[in-house]
């Protein structure tokens, strides 16, 4: 039967199928054995890399306090929006959406990503720092569309909102490529936020703290499912600065009220502790705290007023008449003259064939040193300078702290310059001409100093010869309580003759309290001593030439006032530099206000308000809205109108 014949195939072919199936299943089992047993370790690691993440927890930077324990700089919580490229499916779409949400140009994101192109793809790249709540909620609402955007809450620096002491504090910012390449930043990785200026930079290592980490389980869209472990971040050390917030504000208010830009350094002459360090115009360090945008950065850098420069330690200016204090000290201590040595001023004198004028056309007549300082007589100091020679002037400038760097704990301090024969030979290869010494004796010529150096000088004169190193930190708390910071050792200790010191102090007291130029600093009962000075911006001949050329540069002179108080046992000393104020006595009221505030605080009186503005606002007003206008625009008209009258009064005095 065919029927049966045909079934012959069936058992054989079924057996073949059976064998085939067994072989195939054997192969499958072998494959799984290979993956699950032999290669298990490798796949185990890959699976863990998939779902385990270590997230950095940024340590809050240490808080900065003033000398009275008042908080100056602290931290607030900000939201950062970052991109996790590992999670990106559509980079264009994500960046376009983020640009729409934030209003930031797409190109900025591209530039940021290009900078981080070589980093591992799982590491978040910060795109928007300190995002607004609206931006954060817009991103979170589109979480499913934009799984690669990460919103993190991070502690961010918070500075006083009125730009107070901006240069002193400095600012923080993301570590730059160059800093990373230099490898001298204590091994900080890409994305680290480090101090880029001021105290933030110098004390970065202390302030940084140690970042923590969190080990988390994430799902395939990067969402955190579970926290496996956490090492909390360690907050950076807290610093107690030597700054007194009230004095800092008093100085800044003084500048605002008088309407000048400028700089000031106020310190305790006994210790070198800086009570106030001001530079104006300032900037808002908060803008840097979470990554500054390029437009603001460019504006700050190209602003003609140079708001980023810390004038107090980086601006160098001719000290003018304040330099006479150095010449007087040198002449006394070198034994060239006694305090009672008299010199006749007839309105000018001839040295080396050239006639040098005094500022008082009719001359001061015969003067001793106290009165020469009081009246700021040029002829007296021409004569002393000529007797001393430039090298002895340089030597005393150094001993008093006016030459070289002061050694303050701030970055990028400029070196103050007081010339010497050695300096001129090194610089130009020429010998020094004795005639050049005459200009140096009244603080002109090559002399060029920073406001802080001048403050150090007056402080050394005030304390009788100890050149303290100005410094900013009193104590540090790294989590184990406040530990005092050892102040730096004085750079020079000169035992000046007490009668010399008394004579200098008397002369400076007379300048304020007698018939001197600095009556506006007078504060009855507190024996303020001080000296005004004028720093020429341009020579008289140059000014005549510039007058016709219609230059936009402000050619008006700068005013100085150096001071200490009280005359006997000084507790406060400093230098005020008022840009383009033309006359030193116009800077004096600022000093008066600071001294008043200092003693009011000491005696528990209510702090004084700055008296109504007496002087005109100076300088072109900032066009930049980011630089706070220090003068109320409504005052401008009256200020301009008042200026000629002020100038006439000034001419009558000096």
């Amino acid at each position, binding site marked *: 039967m*065919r*029927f049966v014949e*045909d*079934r012959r*195939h*069936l*058992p054989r*072919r*079924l057996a073949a*199928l*059976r064998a085939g*199936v*067994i072989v*195939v*299943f054997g192969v*499958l*089992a072998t*494959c*799984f*054995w290979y*993956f*699950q*047993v032999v*290669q*298990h370790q*490798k*796949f*185990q690691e*890959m*699976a*863990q890399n*998939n*779902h385990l993440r270590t997230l950095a927890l940024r340590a809050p930077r240490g808080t900065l306090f003033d000398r009275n324990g008042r908080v100056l700089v602290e931290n607030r919580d900000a939201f950062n929006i970052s991109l996790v490229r590992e999670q990106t*499916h559509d980079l264009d779409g994500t960046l376009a959406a983020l640009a729409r949400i934030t209003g930031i140009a797409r190109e900025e994101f591209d530039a940021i990503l290009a900078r981080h192109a070589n980093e591992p793809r799982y590491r978040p790249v910060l795109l928007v720092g300190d995002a607004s709540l609206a931006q954060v909620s817009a991103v979170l609402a589109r979480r499913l569309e934009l799984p690669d955007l990460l919103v993190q809450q991070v502690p961010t620096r918070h500075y006083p909102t009125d730009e107070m002491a901006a240069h002193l504090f400095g600012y923080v910012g993301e570590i730059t490529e160059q800093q990373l390449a230099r490898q001298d930043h204590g091994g900080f990785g890409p994305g680290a936020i480090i101090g880029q200026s001021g105290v933030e930079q110098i004390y970065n290592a202390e302030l940084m703290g140690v970042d923590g980490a969190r080990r988390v*389980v*994430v*799902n*395939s*869209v990067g*969402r955190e*499912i579970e926290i496996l472990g956490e090492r909390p971040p360690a907050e950076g050390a807290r610093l107690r600065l030597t700054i007194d917030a009230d004095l800092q504000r008093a100085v800044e208010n003084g500048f605002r009220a008088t309407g000048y830009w400028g700089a000031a350094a106020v310190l305790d002459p006994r210790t070198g502790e800086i009570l106030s360090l001001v530079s104006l115009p300032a900037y808002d360090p908060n803008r840097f705290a979470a990554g500054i945008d390029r437009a603001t950065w460019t504006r700050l850098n190209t602003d003609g007023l140079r708001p980023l420069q810390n004038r107090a330690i980086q601006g160098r200016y001719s000290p003018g008449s304040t330099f006479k204090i150095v010449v007087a000290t040198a002449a006394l201590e070198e034994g060239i003259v006694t305090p009672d040595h008299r010199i006749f001023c007839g309105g000018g004198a001839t040295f080396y064939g050239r006639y040098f004028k005094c500022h008082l056309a009719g001359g001061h007549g015969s003067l001793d040193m106290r009165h020469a300082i009081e009246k700021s007589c040029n002829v007296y100091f021409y004569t002393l300078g000529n007797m001393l020679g430039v090298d002895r002037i340089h030597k005393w400038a150094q001993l008093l702290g006016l030459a070289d760097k002061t050694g303050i704990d701030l970055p990028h301090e400029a070196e103050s310059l007081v010339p010497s024969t050695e300096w001129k030979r090194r610089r130009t290869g020429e010998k020094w001409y004795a005639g050049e010494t005459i200009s140096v004796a009244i603080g002109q010529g090559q002399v060029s100093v920073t406001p802080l150096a001048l403050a150090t000088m007056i402080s050394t004169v005030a304390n009788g010869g100890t050149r303290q190193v100005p410094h900013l930190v009193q104590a540090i708390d790294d989590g184990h309580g406040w530990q005092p910071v050892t102040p730096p050792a004085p750079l020079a200790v000169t035992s000046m003759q007490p009668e010399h010191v008394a004579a200098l102090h008397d002369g400076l007291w007379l300048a304020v309290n007698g018939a001197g130029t600095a009556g506006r600093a007078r504060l009855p009962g507190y024996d303020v001593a001080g000296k005004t000075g004028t720093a020429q911006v341009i020579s008289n001949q140059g000014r005549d030439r510039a007058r016709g050329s219609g230059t936009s540069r402000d050619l008006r002179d700068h005013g100085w006032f150096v001071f200490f108080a009280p005359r006997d046992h000084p507790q406060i000393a400093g230098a005020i530099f008022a840009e383009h104020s033309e006359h030193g006595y116009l800077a004096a009221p600022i000093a008066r206000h600071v001294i008043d505030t200092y003693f009011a605080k000491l005696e528990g009186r209510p702090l004084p308000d700055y008296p109504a503005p007496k002087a005109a606002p100076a300088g072109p007003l900032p066009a930049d809205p980011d630089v706070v206008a220090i003068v109320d625009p409504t005052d401008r008209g009256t200020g301009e109108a008042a200026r000629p009258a002020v100038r006439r009064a000034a001419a009558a005095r000096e």
Partner: protein
Amino acid sequence: MFERRLHRHIDWLLLAAVLLLAGIGLVMIYSTTYDVMQGRVGAEFYKQLYAALLGVAALAVCLAIDYRTLAEYSLVVFVAIALLLLYVLVFGVVAGGARRWINLGPMNLQPSEFAKVALALVVATFFAENRRGAGNWPDLATAAVLLVVLAGLIAKQPDLGTAVTLVPIFLGIAFVAGMRLKVVAAILALAIVAAPAAWMFALKDYQKSRIETFLDPEKDARGAGYQQIQARVTVGSGGVTGKGFLQGTQGQYKFLPVAHNDFVYSVLAEEHGFVGVLVTLGLYLLVILRSLDAARMAKDRLGAFLVVGLISGFTFQVVYNITMSAGLAPVKGLPLPLLSYGGSSIMATLASFGLVLNVRMRRFTN
């Protein structure tokens, strides 16, 4: 129809193995659809549970009716399925770019799953009634027309994966029906020749990219190659004993997409390790070998052919899916019978085992 004491001849071992696998499938669907964020199981689990219960009912029905009676209506069944597939092409529910489902209110029906049973039935009947067997070309060609009609309609949806599973059903029956080895060799040769042609003309871009990706998964590690790499990581990280129920990180945290569907076996390997793999592979092997036994013992050619057809499609799908779940085959939307999520699939599969049991149970009846 259902004679007394017939139930004594039911292959309880096979039935137990099938139901055990379906139970394991439910456990795996519970695990793969479990929402770690919400801490509760997905709706898919309950859908699958109800579908499995319906499937058991379908199994009972297919067991109760004599398969010879069913064979008499095989052409009717075939035409009905073909019409359903046509209906799907026009009115079907679209999901994931394909039109595969008929909306039945609470559930969607996927007729292509039932087309497998229909094809096995109609081809087995054809060869069984054909006295010459599958020896000659004209008969083979006639039977192949049946295959092409159904496979073509399914491929049109498009659902190439399911269409391809129809081929082993046809070939399996033809093979045991006495197809000459020369012809077997010729078909293999034709496949080799046809592959480049198919590549050039028949395959769509996404299909090509899947195959390209399979050959070099790293090329597109975020896109198409992702699933393949993750599948291997999922399996390999399971180790010998696995990470435990609901403890698989790859599946639970969704690194492996559609884990409850195409990649359910990867998650099984992750959570239950090599031990779980050996147990399930063993169960599948048992099911297949017991079914082949049923074919061997069948009273007539019709029964043998029917069983071989059904089990050929089943075996092909099991082997392909498990290979793919270890990242060793191109990713293809082909569910793992009894384990993967899919209501139509579980119902059709259980129904077909009803037929297998049917053939064996009735080996002594006339």
